[in-house]
Structures are given as C-alpha cells and as structure tokens.
C-alpha cells in the first residue's frame, strides 16, 4: 500500500505497524516522535498501531538549532 513518510511516497506491506515501519526504515525509536495524519502516536503504541493506505506520516527528531 502507498503511504507518505516525511514528504516522500513509499510502498509498504499491508498490515505494517509503526514499529515495523521504523525497522524497515532503519530508524531507532529513541529520541524520535511520529505523527500520522497530524495525530501523535505515543511510543507506547508503536507496536500496536497499524499503518493504513494513504496515511501521511511525519517522523521527527532533534537537530541543531537556536
């Protein structure tokens, strides 16, 4: 199914969870935050949260800034 992650179109397997998506993208869950369709997914729910077709996902972390 097609989703968008950080502005890029991606193709992922049906039934993938947030945890599975992070593993596929090789992103460690520490120090990051995710929102799906502008709704934050708490870290405690990464394992149970399923990603759906056309979901718009933002994965952020901290970078240098003032």
């Amino acid at each position, binding site marked *: 199914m097609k989703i968008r992650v950080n502005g890029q179109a991606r193709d992922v397997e049906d039934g993938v969870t947030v945890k599975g998506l992070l593993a596929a993208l090789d992103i460690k869950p520490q120090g990051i935050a995710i*929102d799906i369709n502008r709704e934050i997914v708490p870290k405690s729910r990464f394992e149970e949260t399923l990603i759906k077709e056309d979901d718009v996902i933002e994965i952020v*972390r*901290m970078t240098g800034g*003032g």
Partner: protein
Amino acid sequence: MEEALKIGKRVFKSRLMVGTGKYPTNEIMKKALDASGAEVVTVAVRRVNLDRTRASMLDHIDTKKFTLLPNTAGCYTAADAIRTAMLAREALETEFVKLEVLGDEKTLFPDNEALLESARVLVKEGFSVLPYTNDDPIMARKLEDLGCAAVMPLAAPIGSGLGIRNPHNIRIILETVKVPVIVDAGVGTASDAAVAMELGCHGILMNTGIAGAKDPVGMAKAMRLAVEAGRLAYLSGRIPKKLYASASSPLQGLIE
C-alpha cells in the same frame, strides 16, 4: 550572594543559554557548549532524513549534563508551533519549550497574534513555555498573564548581531513582569551580553553570536564571562552617570 535562575520548576546556576545550530563541526559545538558553562541548550525539531542514516546530533550532546530546550523555530502559524511543541515533548519527554512563531522570513520577527494563541494552548497543555517575543512590554505582560514561565524578548533580529537595540524597552519589560526575562536573539559580542545583564535581565539565549564567531569556543567563554560580569555589575549597583569630573584622589594634602 548570587541567587539561582528559576524558570518554572527548574533551577539553573548559569544564566547563559546556548543554541546548537550553525557550528562549523559537532566537535567545535561540543567544546563551545562546555566553554559557555551553559546548562540549557536549545534544539530544533526536524524530519528524520530517510535517505541516509546519519548519527543523531544528540549523540554529541551530553543530555545528563545539559537540559534540552526544544524550539518551534521555523513555524509561521500557531497550529504548526503547537504541533511542533507536541512532537518535541513526545521525542524528548520534556514539557520545556521555546515557543517561536515567526511573522516574516526577512525579519524573523514574531507574529504576536499567533504567539499568544499558541502560548495559551501550550500552557493549558502543561508546557513550561518560554516565548520568543518582541521587545514589547505589553506583549510581555500578556504572555505572563497567560502563564508563560519566562519571556524572551529579542535584542535585535535573529542572527543580526546588532546587540541591544532598545535597552529602554527591555528595562520597562523588567519592571512590568515578574517571570524571568531572558534576552533572546541579536547578541553579537561580549559587550552586548554584558549590557543586557547590566540592565537586570535574568539570562541570555544566544546561538549565532557564538556559532558564527571565528573561534566559537573562545567566544563561548567570552560570553560566559560577560554574562557573569554583567550580572555581578547589576547586583553591585553601578555609579550614577555625571556630566562632569569628580576627582578620585584626595583634594587635601597637595604639595605647594
């Protein structure tokens, strides 16, 4: 004699807060942060780069030593600033946020209306909000009334290095609010920092002034000393300014 800086529930010894952007290398940043003596360092929320795995910038910051203050830099609407603050809280498990809502790309001046709107929401959400604001006493009062933990008036535009352009307004802000007043943005060199502290400001947040200097580590130390010197001068009570001379040596006992 020096009391600690209290912001919300947090207490700090250092009155210099430092940004983590624009350093030539992470190694220089690390050394500059140490030289500054800062306890609070700001960070920005950005997308994870999916195309290449890069070590996290946080790998270079000792999070046991420094308190991270995430910002909402680059947000131009209240909605984006609120969303960014929420993401930062989730990522860092902190309620601390430097709230920045910009009105214009050229000046990077704050959008007052959006700032008040987002501050109201974030305070209700339990955030400890430190808003980047104009050097406007009325805005400062409104932000304090909303429950912000501090106010952070700009000295001059972000990254401009122009120094304290309106010391009189900063003084009025200091008389107007009870929360800490942290000068944020525009400090270019050590004397600018000293001027802000001599006015009675409770602290200074700076980034470009250090990161953009030829020797960021040297400038970080200079800023630390200037903030300490300025604070001490403020607490010690400067002499009044007079137009004419008054001799320092006794007028009696001069030889004839």
